């Protein structure tokens, strides 16, 4: 059984929690006091991940950091249907492309949110981050709008993949990064579609489809 080093308010950990739930993988949680504790900077944790970041997934001798890597591992290990990370070259390439996008180009959204919540970057250039975040949102809206024209319901093809999972937290929490919803209607609809997936789970700041009905 894998162990997830986790913090309930982390959008990066949420990526992994979502996939674990959707793949119905039982797991243990090791809660880390990231805020206010900064326990992820202590030697014990750095021994696990020298970058001092969560999530970390440990299973037997395997220690994986980086949520995109963890999603990749979980998809290959547990997804019998091989839809969450398709094996054909084109789909695998596109999935990798959007996984990297989630890891790099959605960082400004995450940084804005982290700073609003925890004051993690007192000297952050808010205008620059805001511009980059909106640019990323526009790119995704264009991609999803293209999909609405061609009948591609997800970021890669007609099934949700780990690329969708990797992008979901930052986009669903974009309001906490002070982003408006209205300019990105295709993203809004994709978020709704994602919430309807079986075994979808929320996190604080992400509302369920129906008030009072825990996802």
């Amino acid at each position: 059984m894998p162990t997830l080093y986790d913090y309930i308010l982390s959008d990066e950990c949420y990526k992994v929690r979502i996939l674990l739930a959707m793949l119905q993988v039982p797991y243990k949680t090791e809660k880390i006091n990231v805020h206010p504790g900064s326990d992820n900077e202590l030697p014990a944790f750095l021994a696990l991940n020298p970058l001092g970041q969560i999530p970390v997934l440990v299973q037997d001798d395997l220690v994986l950091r980086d949520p995109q890597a963890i999603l990749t591992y979980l998809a290959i290990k547990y997804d019998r249907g091989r839809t969450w990370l398709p094996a054909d070259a084109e789909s695998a390439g596109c999935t990798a492309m959007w996984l990297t996008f989630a890891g790099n180009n959605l960082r400004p959204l995450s940084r804005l949110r982290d700073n609003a919540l925890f004051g993690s970057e007192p000297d952050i250039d808010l205008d620059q981050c805001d511009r980059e975040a909106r640019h990323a949102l526009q790119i995704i809206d264009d991609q999803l709008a293209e999909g609405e024209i061609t009948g591609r319901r997800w970021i890669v093809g007609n099934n949700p993949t780990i690329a969708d999972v990797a992008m979901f937290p930052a986009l669903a929490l974009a309001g906490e990064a002070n982003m408006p919803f209205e300019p990105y209607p295709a993203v809004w609809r994709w978020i709704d579609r994602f919430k309807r997936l079986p075994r979808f789970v929320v996190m604080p700041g992400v509302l369920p489809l129906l008030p009072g009905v825990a996802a």
Partner: protein
Amino acid sequence: MGRLNFVNPWSWYSVAASSEIPRGQILPIVLSGTTLVAWRAQNEKISVWSDRCPHRGMRLCLGGTRDDVLMCPYHGWVFGSDGACTHIPAHPQLTPSRAARARIYPCTEADGYIWACIGEPSTPQPTYITSSGNALTHVRTMHIAADVETVAAALMSRPLLSGPSRSNDGWNENLIWSNHDGMVESRYRQGDSDFSARLEFPGLVTCSITIGDNAPLRYTVMLQPTSTDNAAIHLSLDGAGSVEQQSLLNRDLIQLRSDLQSLWHRPTLDRIADRCADMMPDHIRG
């Protein structure tokens, strides 16, 4: 304030394609600076309300809908499609007061689009009907970081897809302008290619591109002022359009937005917008 008038409380504006809000779906919208929520009940009825619960000011677009009601996510207040609160979960036996109601806005559905008005509409329905009589095929709703007047000028001076002046990076000023019936027209001809655009106040641009003896390609853009500096457009093809055609249109639109949002071509666009405004009938000109 732009001559296409950012705040126009007596006109209908398109706010979404009908297909963007199927049954049981919610969409946040902003029209002329007013934050709205559009949603469709199971009985197909579309509603456009202020995006604000009357209880404690929570955004209703973050709530949920089932059957013919909308629920606020904060305290679960239930609203029927007439805007009245029908159920307060904290007091299940209580009949909610009549004051507990969402603020509703006029809305209607026509030509495959949802229309809303932030004030009292001067006509019972939107007055634009597609000229060809064909149904419109919705291609894309896109938000642009430019005011509605600049967006109109861009659409009047540059054809999407094939057409004259396509090889230009910017905007074509060699247009022939005219007006009649309260509408402004721009036209450009090059070789056997002909592009014409017509702007109908307050927010409709219909374009036609003819190449040689081929049937004209017509598309319609509905303009939606969202704020003083921003606009949304709803692009549709007259008649049926292939997926490939729609896809190409979307890509062209993305390029147009990119050029619009860059300031490089603004002086040219401003001049085109001025020419367009000169052509507007006096009773429309601001």
